[in-house]
């Protein structure tokens, strides 16, 4: 027997829902929702635990006995019952919040006990079923007697049985969706339990979808839009040649000229399986009106009633049945897409309750009304942090706008605006204009950012970055952990010094040096870098000159309007150049602005070529002293000054002592050598210093185009593509990045590249970075969507004016996209020059090479891989149009990882 309780199911689903319990040849089949709370009801000894064990997984069952044991070390200690139930409720609440089917194994024969559980389920917006195990008193008493730990007498069972009997009469009013009653040991023994999917769960549908905004009876515009989208439209149905599925966000009806026509078309599509439709508040109200309930006739309801009155009775009935059966929302495409009329916050996805339905139909309202008498809506989308895209309508806007991966498609067609569709997964927006103003709006349509009444300034929440975090990355695999201590450090740097987070779309990763060289006089040498890549299966590498300056990331938008539209920065700026910790390069905003302006002009042809109105460059800003003068003076020049002052006097004192015939041993010789080292040290840093005034003397050496519209080029394009594209930049501000290619299979090629490095470093160069020629981050996950770059196999060797080129032509081995690469290959290895390393290891490091060779690269290499993966993730999120907080999460994680303790000399 099943007690149906449709009124309390949140009104979800058709009223004529199939019974959840059916007798089939003596076997009772109980259906419980996949995500729900199941409350077992029965006296002690009725077999609840056995039943639970048989039909549910052990972790799904929470028993009061077990909880009593947890808090008292004794499952029968009745004095511990209140604490035991606290624990039980806590576990149940947590499981339900996490969306897990949960079974409560307790007697639950009293109304109060059941009510607490029902309330708990409703608070978490899940359905709750009861399964009553009703066994004769004698059976229960007999069972208890066989269990030595149940030393209470039969009177306890009798009292519970009385409670149960009293309950059974009115248990259907307790708030359960269904109450399944199993009578007698045999029926209990034979029962089967199955789970049923929620009505909202259509995650198996993967589209592609055309999601269509509020139609409001505008049949002509709907047909036009469908045709624009490639549909073949008939009078009562439509199909798409590519098998696309339409999803309507509700509010098909009211206000417009042809509500019956719209209903006929959509009903036909839904019946034919070419469309899905969620309920809008207008369908809900129209259905109530048609059902004869008292409603206030306003907001265009009259038009629908009049138009439907002219339709045959049969159609009216079908339309009512259709509207009554519409559900609050759908989860689609494996949960990646949620469609609800007024949107839905993440906690409600896939849930069922009156509260969820009300949110989905009416939105999150504050309870206040505005000056037009309409409800004030709470801007839930601004705080939305869910992974699923939420598409909705309900609030007319002039332009659809992405807010944290949510978008409103109601562009007010009935008010003379447009009818808009979103193509999923391509995120393309398609719309057609209204034929006329069909209905005068009660208030003007909201401009973008309507929810705040002004543009959302891109505010981030502390919860986006705080504490220990696991950031998912698509390139390089899995989740990257950020420890709380490192987040805390990054928070301070980020909030005290970093540029606006909307401009901070990337932070460069650290880079590992090669294994230590054994060559006499060298700590680092190209041989080890080549050997490492060769061992990892890399056959071609590019060796790029490592400029000694300060790492710089330049984010450039073509115009301030692009900056506002794409980055949400509306203060008139159109870009930013920041350091590897996210700080602005110049304290003077005028100089910073001038640098951005000049770079925008220089890069305009590049943007044309890329078909993008913005791009992000990775490079090195020269000279080193431009940003680091304070550090150079307090650290490097100071050491040089001390050395060059003290060492000559030490040499003189030692010479005098030696002159007296004292045996000063090798100390004099060594001190003279140190004096020479000090001079070399001074030359090493002085090479990277030159005076600048404003922008005069400043140069930028870009070596990678990190991203542009729709493409994270750092992920999709190989290094030769970047170098070739950048070699086209022609301006005194731009310093070329000299480079050579090396074929690791060829000893000659390796030697040539090594000779190039030797020459570079001999003339004072910092060194070089060796990178695999093929796409660095492994294959992009959806190559078709991220756009196809210039094929490096044909274009790369041409821009020869960018600098020295030796070695073979780079075009001989085009990287194969989608090719699986070993995951632990470093994205790049830096090989620093012998003299440059004096800046890192100290003036006299060449005196103690043997000791310094004991250096440990493991941590640095691991850090380089993790930061690189995070950087690519940030760029992928940016290029994919993901919300600010998603990009910031990955960028912030790079900064946090940088605060991990690693030997700073590596």
């Amino acid at each position, binding site marked *: 027997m099943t007690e149906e309780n449709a009124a309390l199911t949140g009104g979800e689903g058709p009223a004529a829902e199939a019974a959840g319990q059916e007798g089939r040849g003596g076997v009772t089949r109980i259906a419980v929702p996949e995500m729900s709370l199941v409350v077992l009801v029965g006296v002690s000894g009725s077999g609840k635990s056995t039943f639970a064990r048989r039909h549910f997984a052990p972790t799904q069952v929470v028993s009061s006995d077990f909880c009593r044991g947890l808090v008292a070390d004794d499952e029968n200690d009745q004095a511990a019952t209140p604490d035991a139930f606290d624990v039980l409720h806590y576990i149940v609440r947590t499981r339900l919040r996490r969306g897990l089917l949960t079974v409560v194994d307790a007697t639950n024969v009293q109304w109060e006990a059941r009510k607490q559980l029902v309330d708990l389920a409703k608070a978490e917006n899940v359905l709750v079923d009861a399964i009553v195990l009703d066994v004769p008193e004698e059976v229960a008493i007999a069972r208890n007697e066989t269990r030595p730990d149940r030393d209470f007498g039969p009177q306890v069972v009798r009292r519970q049985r009385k409670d149960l009997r009293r309950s059974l009469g009115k248990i259907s009013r307790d708030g359960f969706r269904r109450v399944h009653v199993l009578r007698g040991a045999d029926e209990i023994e034979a029962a089967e339990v199955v789970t049923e999917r929620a009505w909202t769960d259509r995650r198996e549908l993967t589209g592609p979808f055309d999601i269509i905004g509020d139609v409001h009876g505008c049949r002509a515009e709907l047909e036009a839009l469908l045709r624009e989208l490639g549909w073949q439209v008939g009078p009562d149905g439509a199909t798409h040649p590519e098998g696309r599925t339409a999803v309507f966000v509700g509010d098909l009806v009211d206000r417009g000229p042809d509500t019956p026509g719209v209903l006929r078309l959509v009903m036909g599509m839904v019946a034919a399986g070419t469309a899905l439709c969620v309920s809008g508040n207008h369908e809900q109200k129209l259905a109530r009106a048609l059902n004869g309930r008292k409603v206030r006739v306003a907001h265009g309801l009259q038009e629908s009633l009049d138009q439907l009155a002219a339709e045959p009775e049969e159609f009216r009935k079908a339309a009512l049945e259709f509207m009554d059966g519409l559900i609050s929302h759908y989860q689609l495409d494996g949960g990646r897409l949620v469609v609800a009329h007024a949107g839905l916050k993440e906690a409600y996805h896939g849930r069922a309750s009156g509260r969820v339905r009300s949110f989905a139909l009416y939105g999150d309202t504050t309870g206040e009304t505005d000056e037009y008498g309409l409800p004030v809506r709470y801007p839930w989308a601004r705080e939305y942090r869910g992974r699923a895209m939420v598409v909705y309508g309900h609030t007319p806007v002039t332009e659809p706008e992405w807010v944290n991966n949510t978008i409103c498609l109601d562009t007010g067609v009935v008010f003379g605006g447009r009818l808009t569709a979103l193509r999923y997964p391509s995120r393309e927006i398609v719309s057609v204009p209204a034929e006329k103003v069909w209905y005068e709006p009660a208030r003007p349509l909201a401009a973008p950012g309507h929810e705040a009444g002004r543009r959302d*300034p891109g*505010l*981030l*929440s*502390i919860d*986006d970055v705080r504490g220990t975090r696991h950031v998912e990355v698509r390139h390089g695999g899995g989740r990257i952990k950020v420890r709380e*201590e*490192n987040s805390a*450090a990054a*928070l*301070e*740097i*980020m*909030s*005290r*010094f970093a*540029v*606006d987070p909307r401009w901070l779309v990337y932070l460069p990763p650290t880079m590992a040096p090669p294994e230590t060289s054994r060559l006499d006089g060298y700590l680092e040498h190209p041989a080890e870098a080549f050997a490492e890549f060769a061992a990892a299966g890399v056959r071609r590498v590019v060796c790029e000159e490592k400029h000694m300056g300060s790492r710089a990331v330049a984010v450039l938008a073509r115009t301030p309007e692009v900056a506002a539209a794409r980055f949400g920065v509306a*203060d008139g700026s159109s870009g930013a150049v920041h*350091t*590897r910790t996210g*700080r602005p390069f110049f304290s003077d905003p005028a100089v910073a602005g001038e640098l951005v302006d000049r770079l925008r002009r220089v890069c305009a042809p590049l943007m044309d070529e890329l078909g993008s109105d913005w791009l992000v460059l990775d490079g090195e800003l020269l000279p080193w002293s431009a940003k*680091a003068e*304070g550090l150079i*003076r307090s*650290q490097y020049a*100071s*050491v*040089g*000054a*001390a*050395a060059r002052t*003290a*060492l000559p*006097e*030490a040499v*003189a*004192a*030692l010479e*005098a*002592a030696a002159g*007296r015939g*004292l*045996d000063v*041993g090798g*100390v004099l010789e060594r001190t003279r050598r140190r004096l020479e080292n*000090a001079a070399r040290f*001074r030359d090493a840093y002085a090479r990277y210093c030159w*005076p600048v005034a404003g922008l005069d003397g400043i140069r930028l050496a870009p070596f990678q185009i990190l991203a542009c519209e729709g493409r994270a080029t750092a992920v999709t394009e190989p290094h030769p593509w970047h170098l070739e594209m950048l070699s086209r930049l022609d301006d005194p501000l731009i310093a070329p990045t000299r480079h050579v290619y090396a074929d690791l299979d060829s000893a000659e090629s390796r030697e040539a590249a090594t000779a190039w490095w030797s020459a570079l470093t001999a003339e004072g160069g910092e060194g070089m970075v060796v990178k695999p020629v093929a796409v660095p981050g492994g294959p992009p996950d959806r190559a078709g969507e991220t756009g196809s770059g210039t094929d490096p196999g044909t274009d790369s060797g041409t821009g020869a004016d960018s600098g020295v080129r030796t070695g073979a032509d780079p075009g001989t081995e085009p990287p194969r996209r989608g090719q699986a690469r070993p995951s632990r290959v470093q994205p790049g290895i830096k090989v620093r020059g012998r003299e440059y390393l004096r800046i*890192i290891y*100290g003036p*006299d*490091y060449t005196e*103690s090479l043997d000791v*310094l060779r004991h250096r440990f690269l493991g941590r640095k290499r691991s850090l380089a891989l993790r930061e690189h993966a995070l950087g690519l993730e940030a760029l992928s999120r940016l290029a994919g149009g993901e919300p600010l907080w998603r990009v910031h999460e990955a960028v912030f994680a790079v900064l946090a990882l*940088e605060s*991990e*303790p690693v030997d*700073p*000399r590596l």
Partner: protein
Amino acid sequence: MLLTISTTVRPATDLGFLLHKHPDRVQEFGQSYGTARVFYPEASEERCTAALMLDVDPVRLVRSRGRSTPDYALGQYVNDRPYAASSLLAGALADVFRTARTGRCASRPELAAGPIPLEITLPALPCRGGPELAHRLFEPLGWEVEARAVPLDEGFPEWGDSRYVRLSLRGEVRLADALNQLYVLLPVLDDAKHYWIASDEVDKLIRAGESWLAAHPERGLITRRYLGRRWALTRTAFARLAELGDDVEEELEPPVEEETAAFGAPEDPDAGPAEAPPGGTAPPDGTAPPGEDAVEDAVSEGTALPAQGDPVDDGNGPEAGGRRPLNVLRREAVLAVLGELGARTVIDLGCGTGQLVGALLADPSFTRVAGADVSSQALAVAARKLRLDRMPDRQRARLELFQGALTYTDDRFSGYDAAVLMEVVEHVDPPRLAALERVVFGAARPGHVIVTTPNAEYNVRYEFLTGMRHPDHRFEWTRAEFAAWAERVCAEYRCTVAFRSVGDDDPEVGPPTQLAVFTLGGTE
């Protein structure tokens, strides 16, 4: 790395007896970080010179410490210790000339007991405060001082002088005293962070300074700097980040207010901009390792040694000379406003080391008090100063301290009668102020917001101030600018504002600190 001591006493070679080192031998003394050598470049009847040369192996220097010490940084590998006359040299001197320092000399007792003509040379002495400070420290001890600044780099004359001086001292001084003076004063002049930490530094200072320190006019500065070496902290994640950005770490140190009251040194502008970065002469509170309150208290209360005003730090500003420091006046003004508003629950946004939080806790009419700051270091100091671990439960229950940033919305900021932003907004880059406004006035939306900030007009009253009052200030507003900002905030976030002044209201330039009280109504 080098120190030479010469004498012209007859016979000059008696210096060997006094130092207990034979003039005709080269003697080596192993140190944990290298080798100390004593040899005599000259040794005649007329003149004898002993040289102490320290051979510092930077690799061994680093390896002799743990990873968590402050030195585990790039700076440690490229540092001046192998060349400069630093604390390492002082330590070696104390070790090598241990007996000479006591003044004992069995073979030449009279010579050891009295002053002899001495000439001491240090070719590269790190001297924070410049040649002038070397004069101030050595002249009162009877030395004729020649201190010449060493240029940073002749190739870049615009960079100016380095922090090193070539120091020569000439005078008639007892050798043991001279050695003890060097032992104490080398680290004092150096004033760097790279030191050992020993537990008996106070004792050592008292012993080495026995005969001369108490009467030295700069004893306050000497004591403070000498003991300041104790403020080494474990390298934090923050420090590692600071370094990465090509920045000098000190510039990034949190703008934590110094405990100024203890030395009678007033407000930041008065601290003398030359020594302005927090953590300059007096150790910032943030650098104290936990569990060292005893020494901090002893020094603060001036019980260890007489602590006198440090002329470098001493203010000549308007607050000097018996007037109450501005930070105290400011705190009192804020407390008075909170009282008038009848606020019961208060959050101090940017609480620093928790001085206002402490004052709020002391008043039982505040039933809930919170302090938030972006610097975990500042919060750690706040927790220590408020003695959080010993606070009674009832009081502890009224208090919350947590890390938060004013450019990130934060639910923990919500639900207070009043929020205080005391000397905070001027530490935010102007382009980021809009985010702060949204976080505080839009999202947190307390009943009232109290904002204090310097009045830039008043800066002309600080005699030695150039630029802004604190190196981390991103701007300082005039009264008109502050008012314009406040009115814009009011228009945007539907609130009203009233202004107050803190400190002397100068008829021409207004008060040193301006204060605004915003009153917000309901939800935005």
